């Protein structure tokens, strides 16, 4: 059971990483990051079957932080949309050199 969960978690994490690297929409990139964090949560839950409830406490911490991060992240995405009328990362290219 633990091994299957860990494998599934690794697959989810990889899907998240590939999504971040290939997608160009800021919101979808952010969703992929959340997928990565939740994959990690699954690992923590799986390990907590071996080591007691500490892993589950970590999951609560991670979810709290992810919620705070989502609030800030979506606000930043709205800010950029107001300036550029797009959230496509290929179009957001004022800074380069």
């Amino acid at each position, binding site marked *: 059971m633990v091994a299957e969960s*860990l494998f599934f978690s690794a697959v989810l*994490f990889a899907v*998240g*990483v590939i999504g*971040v690297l290939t997608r160009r929409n*800021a919101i979808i*990139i*952010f969703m992929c*990051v959340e997928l*990565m*964090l939740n*994959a*990690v949560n699954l*690992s*923590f839950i*799986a*390990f907590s079957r*071996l*080591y007691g409830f*500490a*892993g589950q406490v*970590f999951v609560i*911490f*991670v979810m709290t*932080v992810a919620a*705070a*991060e989502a609030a*800030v*992240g979506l*606000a*930043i*995405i709205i*800010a*950029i949309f*107001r*300036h*550029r009328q797009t959230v496509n*990362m290929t179009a*957001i290219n*004022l*800074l*380069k*050199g």
Partner: protein
Amino acid sequence: MLALTRGIMPTGLAALAGLQAVPLPGSPAAAAPTFDLHLPWQLLGALGPDLLLVVGAIGLMVWAAWRPESAGHQRRVGELSLWLVVATAAAVLAYAARHLTAEPGVIAVDAFRWAADLIFLVATFATIALSMDYNAREGITSGESHVLVLFATSGMMLLAAARDLMLVFLGIELMSIAVYVLAGLNRRSARSAEAALKYFLLGAFSTGFLLYGIALLYGATGSTTLTEIGDRIHQYGLGAAPLITVGLALLLVGFAFKVAAAPFHMWAPDVYEGAPTPITGYMAAAVKAAAFAAFIRIWVEAFPEVVYHWHNAIWFLAVLTMFVGNIVALVQRNIKRLLAYSSIAQAGYVLVAVVSGTTLGASAFLFYLAAYTLATMGAFAVVVALGDRGETNLDIDEYAGLWTTQPWLALAMSVCMLALLGFPVFGGLGFLAKWYMIQAALQAQYLGQPTPQVMLAVMIVLTSVISAGYYLRLVTIMFMRPRHPDRTTAALAVRPGALTESVVVVSVVLLLALGLVPAYLVNWSARSVPAITQRPVYVLPSAGSGTP
């Protein structure tokens, strides 16, 4: 070698030599008060300065939001924030002076923590002071910006104290989330918003790696406390366990993103260019320092046994970062991008301290950070002083002829550049910092075995030569090139705000003064190593066998 160095710098390295056998004069005596971190009140006591800052910042945040936004309110909130930083620094000094200690637990109470805290607080003070002038010029009226800097600093102080991977995660997030907002502080600027978005997406991405690394290390050892991880790896011989190797690799990627080490540095120039200048200085100095403080503590406390798995990785990371940062900086035209690549290169030098991984490495790390923080904040203070509204004059050609219009600013910028370069005397502390770092590389050891990192020392020197190409070019532009007739001199003739001026003056004077009289700072950094580096596994071998 010690005999040689004792001649040059008597007190500090003699103290280091003293580490081998006897406790340092300043190290905690047996009778020093010890916190028992299992008791809630004692845990709160161990977090005293951090709590002072957090509670004060929450109060300030309420007050900042209470009144309508105005330039005057922004300034008042800034002033109170500065006082809060001073109070926190006083609390840190009071804790440090009492030589408190703690049983191994989730929070470290040691000199390393207080030393790192002081470096963060100095950078925070400079950032808030610069922001007050900068906000007034750019028409940013939100007083909350200063409070966000305080929140980020509390995250850094947690990072310096954390002895548990979960607290490291929380500290990094507390710091990063506040800095994401700070990068996008200028709501009128599309560049600022873009910097915030890029920083946020890549920061969150790297957090994912960091957290997965923590999960795997927890899975391998059943604990997230650094000392317990170290003990269990030792006890059960987990050094070669695949979960540990993969977990460490992920942790390393996460930290490499946070400190902007090549090849994970791509976000840094964009973010540094777009963010408001004082915040850029804050990111270059304090954020990087905090990530490094946690990095070095984790590596030294939890994984001394598995050095062979991470030694090569960090070695290549350090070399690559030094070369990429310095070489790409040569072609930069924008002063903030130039300083961004310079700070990437400096991260490479600091990684050498991580590779060296000894008490000497940890103290070289603190010494280097002190010099780097002063030089960076000084350089960004000059950029703030010379910037005009909307940040349109950041091309380095704008600095041509500065010597004729504002000679003192030109001199200050030169001192900071020479300090970052590591130039003797005129670069002040910068030269000694690099010298100390090279000493740490040459005296590196693992598990008591001397393994001098001669190649790394050579790389530091080689890449410093490359870095002269851009640091000295800026100096020559300021002093020797006449102003282009098409460019106005209006911005260069404006007298900077009083706070900006004081930041410039204080950092430059400190750089030069501490460069001339370094003994105090050397002693301070030699004493301020993580308590755990004095564990048996890190005790240096007796004299003779330890001399390469």
